């Protein structure tokens, strides 16, 4: 039997479309299969806790008592009556504020180890060594170094005649936070340095050669070529710095446990203490929401500062 006129091309197109759709469906199903485990984990461990945390923050809740509606009571307590919240927020912001200094320091070191300096590879390794160390170990090491009686820092200060009496670095309201920040910077410096070094090494050399031919001095090359080309690396360091400031729980917990008073209390340590130390899980949830909002705001600002498209895929 002969096919109807025009039937063959039409049938072929339909068959082609059908095959294409089936292929697309199969591909989509495959993509979904690959994505599903990650999405499930993301939903269970990110979206669900976030939603539950939000709900918890507007309830009165303790492990063995039925939840009651609290409205904005916890937020009112936090914003109007809780001095510790404001202190821990201030401390967290100071911690964040220290990140640019650390990045600037790392940039300086990266420039040095990227130069023809003799033994640059050794220095690079030494600076990076602090980063893979466990934060708990870093906290313990620095705690001992700061120790009033047997710490090497006080020993050096006294032996050199700079101070007559040992400085109680971690026991003083004035010294505790800067001391913890120094330890934090020391640990993360190596990471910043490696990121910036990678950025430095990816800057095409011909840009510097062209600038030299045009007679641009070294400082102009730094400001006009190096810094702009390092923008993505510096942005990454800034984001990591912000995240580190929010999650420096272990270092603070080990070194000072937030003390003396609340001189080194960060939002993250205060959240932990409120939840597990004082069984105020509902209040801790409200604090967590505050921290989340702050984190969102800072990430947005950092993104804006980086030109507004940091992290987006490059268009081909």
């Amino acid at each position, binding site marked *: 039997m002969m096919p109807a006129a025009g039937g063959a091309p039409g049938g072929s197109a339909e068959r082609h479309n059908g095959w294409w759709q089936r292929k697309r469906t199969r591909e989509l199903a495959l993509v979904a299969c690959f994505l599903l485990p990650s999405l499930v984990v993301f939903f269970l461990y990110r979206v669900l806790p976030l939603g539950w945390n939000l709900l918890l923050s507007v309830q009165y809740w*303790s*492990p*063995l*008592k039925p939840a009651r509606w609290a409205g904005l009571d916890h937020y009112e307590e936090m914003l109007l*009556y809780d001095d*510790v919240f404001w202190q821990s927020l201030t401390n967290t912001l100071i911690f964040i504020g220290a990140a640019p200094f650390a990045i600037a320091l790392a940039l300086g070191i990266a420039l040095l180890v990227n130069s023809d300096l003799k033994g640059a590879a050794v220095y690079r390794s030494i600076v990076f060594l602090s980063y893979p160390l466990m934060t708990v170990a870093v906290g313990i090491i620095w705690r001992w170094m700061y120790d*009033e*009686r047997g710490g090497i820092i006080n020993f050096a200060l006294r032996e050199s005649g700079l101070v007559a*009496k040992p400085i*109680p670095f*971690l*026991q*003083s*309201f004035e010294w505790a936070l800067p001391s913890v920040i120094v330890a934090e910077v020391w640990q993360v410096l190596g990471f910043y340095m490696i990121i910036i070094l990678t950025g430095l090494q990816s800057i095409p050399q011909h840009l510097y050669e062209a600038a030299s031919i045009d007679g641009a001095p070294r400082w102009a090359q730094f400001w006009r070529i190096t810094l702009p080309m390092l923008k993505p690396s510096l942005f990454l360091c800034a984001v990591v710095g912000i995240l580190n400031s929010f999650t420096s729980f272990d270092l603070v917990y080990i070194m000072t*446990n937030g*003390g*003396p*008073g*609340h001189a080194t209390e960060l939002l993250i340590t205060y959240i932990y*203490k409120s939840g*597990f*130390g*004082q*069984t*105020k899980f509902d209040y801790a949830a409200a604090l967590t929401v505050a921290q989340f909002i702050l984190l969102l705001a800072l990430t947005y600002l950092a993104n804006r500062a980086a030109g507004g498209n940091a992290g987006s895929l490059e268009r081909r």
Partner: protein
Amino acid sequence: MISRRTLLKSGAGAVAATLAAPAIAQAPKKISFLTWNIIDQEPMIRGWIARFAKDRPGVEVEWLDKKGPEIPVFYQTQLVAGTPPDIINTQGALGLEYAAQGALLDLTPRLKADAAVGSRFNADYLSNWAYEGNNYLLPFYITKTLLFYNKPMFQKAGLSGPPQSFDALIDAAQKMASGDASGFLTLNFDWLYWPLYATNGIDLLSKDLTKPTFNTPKAIEVTDRLAKATEAGAINKISWTGRWVEPNGAFAAGNVGMLHAHSPAYFFVKGQGKWVTPETLGVAHAPGGFATPNSHGLGISKASKNPDLAWDFLKFVTNEGAQELGVNRKLVTGNIAVDTKNLADLEKSDPLVYSILKTQLEHTDKMVGNWRLGNDSKIKEAFWPELQNVLLGRKDAKTALADAERKVARELKRG
């Protein structure tokens, strides 16, 4: 005629029943026992479990041990999950907080029904864990604060013996302070410094625990004196900043005149301080005989599936087990008969430890800082940072105590 489906269902049911029946019949009665950082006593605890299980066929006891900071996190997550350990060992006022939350079984009816059990213990220590008139924990091992003093430093300063009043304590501290040496140190966590206030007639709360009563001219004066003595170096600053290791370590260094701490501090100080001998370390009550307890108790989780078995284990540990615990760890357990025997032995074998432990059983009617609160940690958090502000020179006493009063009143109101 039986259908194929009915036949298959019946067969599957029969197989399941056959498999499950012995399992149910043989399922052991199991309880879990959570202790607080005594992993070093593993052989002893395994021995208790073996002896306890030997007389009770089919009974299993699972032992868990967690370090101090881990216990609240672990217990509360287990509570939320509905699987708390059957028996829990807590320290200080934590047990009362759990009782207030409804996590612990009220032991009062069992203590009434089994009167011999309650009468085993020192009544003052037992009553430390009474919340709203009901008892939730039994003493496991007990401690309260006392005054350790460095005899050579006392002699050098021309002091004849431990101070008998707050004024004498401050004077003695001032006499011993010079250069790197300071006169006095106290532990500060869990209200352990409160005897310094109690000896001046100051109480934190009203008798009914509903109002703060500490903001008085006397309290301002005492706080001011403590701050000035700290500023002058008579009181070591670590008193108000360190927790356990730092103050005990500082006293062990040998240049602090007095250490106000609970009895376990001795073992730390002895371990670190080569100077510590019966001739050099003095032991006394703090002025007025006041002391803050920081004991360990054992309670049963309300969610326990085997509360009777847990109660039996509790009785076993605090009686048969107590003797061994007291000897191994050189401590007092609150079990009167056990402590009497162990102390008699220690008097001959280790007179210094004997003199320390003896203080733990004296003046037990003068225990302070042990308010039966269900929100002790919140009150502590409202009060302590403000006091710390004065003692470390950030605020004046009047302002700080007024701020503390406002915060404590707010926490009391919030419940």
